């Protein structure tokens, strides 16, 4: 503004002096204005060009960076893809079942030689058959015994079933001890099982030998059900009642292959039912009680009824010390071609777990009811001392005084004194034992 005024005033003053010069100056001024305008235009164009180029440069830098990255990725990919297959594309190792190996062996001292011992029977309950091979599964020999290597597999099959298999490998025999499937998702507290399995009749029948507190089977079970107990093909349904106190009802239908009490092979013949309950007597004392019944047909085609009652009381003295009292009673009513046979027996045992390593126990077995003309004073005393240097390693010293056996064909009753030192180990993925 001031510039213009000065210019105008200058122009005015000049006009006062020379009219002709004024014309010249006017033309010059106009020319100068034109050139400035032209220069301004060029400047603007140049500026525009510059910003455009800067943008282009930025874009190019970005694309360069991106391509560099792509090249790097491509390079590593090229390095990571070998031409030789080294990955485990279809590896199934994570689906492998839990595998446990259980070994059991013993050294035995006995006042009866081996050939005589093989002929033993319990008068009134079993007989000696010279033509049959003796069925003594554990600790048969005076001297050393390797009883079994047990292979236990457990796996979840899918959302709906678990599978278990327990193989008993004896020195000259392969046996499927158990193999069954168990339901996982049944509602209302129900669980179903199918396959070959140990019945949950009573208390000890479903427990494997390696988890027993004494190395030998209770007399009542051996006398009334044989060395295998009730271990059969069939189905099982268990129901945990929706009560505050533990109440479990179970039903099993089985083939009835056990020929000591059942064994009618014409069709499936064995039906088992049981009711179990447990509650705490004090903060540290728990009681578990059960009643069981098994109804089936025996080899003569007649009925056999087997009744069981069991009671377990366990008191925890501290984390590693406890007192366990367990008893079981069996009563059998077996109808044969020669009439009705009523027999019964029981065992009662007390086990004191001193600490994590040491335990001791005593057991009394009695077959107190026998058929007529047969002895009813068949009983047995057992005492044991157990040492576990580690949770899964067990050594047991057991003394047995057995007054229930007779030998051979001449009805010779003889008391057995036996001392046994055994070991049992559980290696691998072995699930925890129940109560």
């Amino acid at each position: 503004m001031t510039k213009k005024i000065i210019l105008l005033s200058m122009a005015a003053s000049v006009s006062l002096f020379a009219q002709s010069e004024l014309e010249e100056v006017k033309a010059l001024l106009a020319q100068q204005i034109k050139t400035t305008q032209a220069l301004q235009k060029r400047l603007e164009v140049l500026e525009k060009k510059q910003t455009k180029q800067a943008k282009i440069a930025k874009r190019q830098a970005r694309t360069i960076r991106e391509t560099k990255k792509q090249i790097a990725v491509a390079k590593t990919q090229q390095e990571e893809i070998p031409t030789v297959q080294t990955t485990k594309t279809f590896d199934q190792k994570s689906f492998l079942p839990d595998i446990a190996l259980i070994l059991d062996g013993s050294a035995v001292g006995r006042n009866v030689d081996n050939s005589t011992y093989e002929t033993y029977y319990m008068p009134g309950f079993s007989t000696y058959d010279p033509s049959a091979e003796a069925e003594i599964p554990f600790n048969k020999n005076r001297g050393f015994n390797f009883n079994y290597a047990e292979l236990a597999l457990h796996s979840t099959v899918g959302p709906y079933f678990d599978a278990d298999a327990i193989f008993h490998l004896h020195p000259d025999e392969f046996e499927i001890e158990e193999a069954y499937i168990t339901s996982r998702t049944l509602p209302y507290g129900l669980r179903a099982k199918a396959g070959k399995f140990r019945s949950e009749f009573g208390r000890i029948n479903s427990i494997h030998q390696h988890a027993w507190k004494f190395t030998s089977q209770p007399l009542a079970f051996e006398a009334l059900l044989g060395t295998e107990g009730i271990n059969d093909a069939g189905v099982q349904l268990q129901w945990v009642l929706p009560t505050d106190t533990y109440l479990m009802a179970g039903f099993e239908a089985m083939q009835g292959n056990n020929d000591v009490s059942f064994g009618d092979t014409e069709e499936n013949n064995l039906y088992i039912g049981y009711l179990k309950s447990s509650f705490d007597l004090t903060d540290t004392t728990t009681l578990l009680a059960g009643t069981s019944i098994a109804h089936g047909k025996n080899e003569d085609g007649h009925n056999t009824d087997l009744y069981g009652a069991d009671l377990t009381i366990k008191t925890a003295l501290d984390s590693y010390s406890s007192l366990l009292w367990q008893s079981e009673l069996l009563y059998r009513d077996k109808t044969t071609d020669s009439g009705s046979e009523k027999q019964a027996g029981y065992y009662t045992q007390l086990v004191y777990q001193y600490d994590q390593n040491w335990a001791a126990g005593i057991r009394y077995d009695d077959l107190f009811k026998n058929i007529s003309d047969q002895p009813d004073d068949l009983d047995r005393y057992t005492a044991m001392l157990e040492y576990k240097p580690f949770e899964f390693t067990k050594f047991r010293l057991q003394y047995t005084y057995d007054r229930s056996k007779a030998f051979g064909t001449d009805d010779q009753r003889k008391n057995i004194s036996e001392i046994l030192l055994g070991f049992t180990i559980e290696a691998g993925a072995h699930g925890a034992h129940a109560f």
Partner: protein
Amino acid sequence: MKKTTLLLSLLSTVVFAQFNVVASYPYLGRIVKAVGGDNVKVKVLASPRFDPHFVIPKPSLIPAIARADMLVANGAGLEIGWLPPLLKSANNPKVRISSTGFVDASHAIRLIDKPKAVSRAYGDVHPEGNPHFNSDPHNIIPIAKYVTKKLSQLDISHAQEYHHNLTQFATKWKRFLKTFDAQMKTCKSKKVVQYHELYNYLLKRYGIRSTATIEPLPGIAPSSKHTIALIQKMKKENIKMILQDPYHEKKTAHFIAAKTGAKVTVIPHDVGAVSGTDTLKTFYETIATRLCH
């Protein structure tokens, strides 16, 4: 009239129908109760008096599991010796391992002491890492958050309340942690010996050095050879404190103490393990007082 009372009683059961939660250990029960409030009914399985590894799988515990809508376990293998048979017998698909109702608290924690090699030759090792993370009170909020998440998922109608409870609990707990941290700072770089590696999470956080254990290997009872070596080590390194849990035998610890002049301090391993520790707060206060008095 009858109909209305019937309806009313039905309604009341609906109103008061609680969400059943089973917790394996007492401290987990306290966390669930803090978050769940009146909407959940909590049953704790293990007694704080006993070794958490060796709980007796009493069948009398089965009914609670059978009716549970959710089960909160410590995890990292701590319950492996007793919970699986109970879960199996309870026939409750809702809280089976791998179902949504089974809550493994160890998932909320970054586990330490993960063994590089797993073999039973090293004793009762936990392949996933040290499961005794409840010794560090800083692990309570992560577990509470995880429990809240699970509770809200399974009991959607009360989700808001659970989140509200969590916020309140977390605020209170953070305040408590401040005083706890201050108290624990006073015994930084102290050197201690433990019976079992039960307090590693706590010791690690507060810079207390655990130099050895009384048991030669996890789960293996003390041997005279190991004890003698330990006494020598403690004398040499001037270690004056033995951390003893309440459930193991204390004879060995007292023997070592007599030989070395160290002090045996019983540190609770769970809520209610020693008297005066019935709440989460008093449990940790007792730990701090006994460790850094």
